[in-house]
C-alpha cells in the first residue's frame, strides 16, 4: 500500500516537472559535467540544463570562485565544440586561463555592455539562441519579471543560463531554477607538496526547485570536479514540510 502511494507520488512529480518548465535533461549531457556526487540534490537526479541558474557573490574572491565553478561546468558543456556567450560589464576574464578548464577560449563570444538595460536585453536574446551551449551574464540586479523572461526563453531554446550576481542589493525571489553560492577555500595540496594546490570551493546550493538544497566542498583537480569531504549538513532555508 505504502509503496503504491510513493509510486503515485513519484509519477505525479515526474508529470509536474515539465509543467513547471523544467525539461528532463538528457542524462548523458549532464553526466559530462562531472557533478555526479551532487545528483541527489537535483530534481530527477541530474544537473538541470536548459534552465537559468543564479550565483550570488559577495566580494571579489567569491565572484572569482563562481567564475571558476562556471568555467568548470562550461568545460563539460562545450566539449563538443559548442559556443558560449559571456555578457559582462567590462572585460575581466583572462582568456588564456580558460584553457585550463577545458574551454577553447576562441569559442567564447564576449559582449561588454555598460548599461544594465542593454545587458538584460542581450542576455535574453542570447538565451533565445538554441545553438549556444551556455550563456553567462554578469548582472547584479535581477527582477522577478526578467528572471521569468529568461526562464521562458530557455524553455524554448534549451540553452543553459548562468547569472553572476556580484553583491546584489536585494535577494528577492525569482524564477531561476537554482541559487548557488560559491566560497573559496584554502587550496588542497597533494601529499607534502609546497605552494598552491588545487583550487577548492565551498559550493552551496541555497535554493533549487524540486530539489534538496545542500552544500559540498569541491576541488578542481586534473580537469574534473571532485568532492573532498563529506557533505556538510543540508541547509534548509525554507522548511518545506507543512503541518496540519
Amino acid at each position: 500500500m505504502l509503496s503504491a502511494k510513493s509510486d503515485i507520488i513519484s509519477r505525479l512529480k515526474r508529470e509536474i516537472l515539465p509543467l513547471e518548465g523544467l525539461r528532463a535533461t538528457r542524462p548523458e549531457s549532464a553526466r559530462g559535467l562531472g557533478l555526479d556526487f551532487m545528483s541527489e540534490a537535483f530534481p530527477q537526479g541530474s544537473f538541470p540544463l536548459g534552465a537559468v541558474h543564479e550565483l550570488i557573490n559577495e566580494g571579489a574572491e567569491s565572484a572569482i570562485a563562481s567564475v571558476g565553478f562556471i568555467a568548470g561546468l562550461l568545460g563539460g558543456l562545450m566539449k563538443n565544440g559548442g559556443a558560449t556567450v559571456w555578457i559582462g560589464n567590462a572585460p575581466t576574464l583572462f582568456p588564456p586561463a580558460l584553457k585550463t578548464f577545458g574551454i577553447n577560449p576562441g569559442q567564447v563570444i564576449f559582449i561588454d555592455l555598460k548599461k544594465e538595460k542593454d545587458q538584460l536585453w542581450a542576455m535574453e536574446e542570447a538565451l533565445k539562441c538554441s545553438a549556444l551551449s551556455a550563456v553567462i551574464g554578469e548582472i547584479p540586479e535581477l527582477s522577478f519579471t526578467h528572471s521569468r523572461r529568461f526562464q521562458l526563453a530557455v524553455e524554448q531554446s534549451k540553452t543553459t543560463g548562468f547569472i553572476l550576481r556580484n553583491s546584489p542589493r536585494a535577494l528577492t525571489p525569482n524564477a531561476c531554477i537554482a541559487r548557488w553560492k560559491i566560497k573559496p577555500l584554502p587550496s588542497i595540496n597533494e601529499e607534502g607538496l609546497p605552494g598552491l594546490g588545487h583550487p577548492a570551493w565551498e559550493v552551496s546550493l541555497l535554493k533549487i526547485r524540486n530539489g534538496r538544497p545542500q552544500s559540498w566542498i569541491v576541488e578542481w583537480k586534473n580537469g574534473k570536479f571532485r568532492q573532498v569531504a563529506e557533505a556538510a549538513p543540508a541547509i534548509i532555508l525554507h522548511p518545506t514540510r507543512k503541518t496540519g
Partner: protein
Amino acid sequence: MPRFVTIWFRHLKTDWQSVRQPTLRSLPFVLAIPDHGRKIITAANPLAQQQGIEPGMVVADAKAIFPSLKIIDDDPSLPEKLLKSIAKYCIRYTDTVAIDLPDGLILDATGCAHLWGGEKNYIAEINSRLTNRGYDVRATMADTIGAAWAIAHYGGSSPIIEPGKQMEALLNLPPSALRLEPEVTDRLYKLGLRKISQFINMPRAALRRRFGQHTILRLDQALGNADEPITPIIPPEPFRERLPCLEPIVTLTGIEIALQRMLNAQSLTLNAKGMGLRKAVFTCYRIDNKVEQVEIGTSRATANPKHLFKLFEEKIQTIEPALGIELFILDATRTEKIINRQESIWSTTGGLEDPAIAELVDRLSNRFGSSPIKRYQPDERHMPENSFKPVVNLLESMVDGSRLTVDGFQWTTDRLRPISLLSRPEPIDVTAPIPDYPPMNFRYRNKLHKIKKADGPERIEPEWWISEGRHRDYYAVEDEEGGRYWIFRAGHYAADRSPNWFIHGYFA
C-alpha cells in the same frame, strides 16, 4: 541570345541647337571652336552640308562658300550631357542603356522587343519618338553591338539583322564599319581591302601581325565571338525589390507589411541564385519628395527573410512617414554566395558555424554596434595583458575553422594563469622577508591578506624590441581565507627605493 540596339544621331549637336531655337531649322549653320587662332567647324547641319560645308573646315573657307552662314560656338562637353539625358529617356525601352560617344547610344534590348509587338515595331517606335523630339536618328538591332553599329552607320537594307546573320550583313560593308582606328582603316584601304568580305576569312595570325590585336577584337565583337562590355548609365542593382503603393503608407504596420513582402520576394530571388545578403538598404520615397533610408548588415550571407526582418524591425521605427510613403525599394547592396554546410544531425549545439549564432551576433551588433562584441585569439607576447587580442573579423574566422589559431599561435597552457586579469595592475603594500621570497602579507583596498601559500617567482620580461619597461616577478599567493591572487614585483630590489608591488589577477 542577346539583342542590342544602337542609335546613331547623325547631327546630334546641330539638331539640339535647332530644337532650342526653331528659327535655325531653315538656316544653314555650323558649330565651331577656336583652334590656333582660327575657327574650325565641328558640326554642320544638313542644310549647310548640302552647300558642301563639312566638319573640319575652317570657318573662313566655309564663309567663302556660303557668306550668310551662321556660326555658333561649340561646347565640347555638350554631346555627353545630351546623350546622357536622351539615355535616361530611353530607359523606357530597356533598363540597360549605355552612351557611346561621340554620337550614339547602346541599348541592351534582350527580351524587350516583344513588349512593343516585335523588333520591327520596337525600332520604329524608337525612331519615331526620337525623330519627334527633333533628332535625326538611325536605330538598328543585331545580336552584337558591333554589327548593329555597322549597319547603323554604313547602311544595309533593313535596320534589323536577324539573329545569327551578322556575318552576312557585314560582308558588304567597308572596313570602317568595324570601328577600327583611323590608321588601320587607311592601311586597309591602301591595300585595296575595301570590303569586310575581302579580309574576314584571312588567317587570324596574319591579320594580327599587320593590323594589330584591336582589329581582331573588333571583328570578333561584331561577329559575336567576343564580349563587349557596356557601362549602363544606371548601374544595375542585381537584387532590388520595388513596391509602389496605390495609397500612401503612413503607419508602422503598413511599412512592416511592405517590408515583409519585399523580403520574401527578395529571398526567393536570392535563393534561386544561391546568393545571400550581407548588406541591404530599405528606401522609402515619401510623397513630399523626401527619402527615408535604413540600412542593415549581416555577419554572414543569409537569405532568411525572418532573420532579415528582425534586423530591420528595430530600425524601421525611425522612419518618419510624414504625409505618406508611396514607393518602397529594397536593395541588396552587398551579396555573397551562400556556402552551404552539411548539417550535422547529432550535435545538439553546433559550434560557431551555426547560422543561429550568426543571427544572434547580427541582432546584437545591429543594436550595440560591433565594438562590444569580441572574441579572442592568442598573441605571441610576453606580458600577460598583451598575450591575447581580439579577433579582427569576428565572424570571418568563425567561418573557416574556428579551432582558433588564427595566426598559427597556440594558447599556452604550461603556466599557471589567473582566470581573471585586472585591466591594469593595481599597487599593493607588501611585507616581504628577503629578496625573491614571496611576501608574508599584502594590503589591497584596505584589507590585509595574510599569505599562507605561495608559488613563484615567475619572471616575465617585457620584449626589449617592442617596449621598454621593468621585468616583473610574479607570485601566485593564497591568503588564509582561501582567496588566490596573482601579484608581482616590478623590477629589482634597490637600496634607494622601496619595491613596487602590484596585484594583477585572481585565481579561481
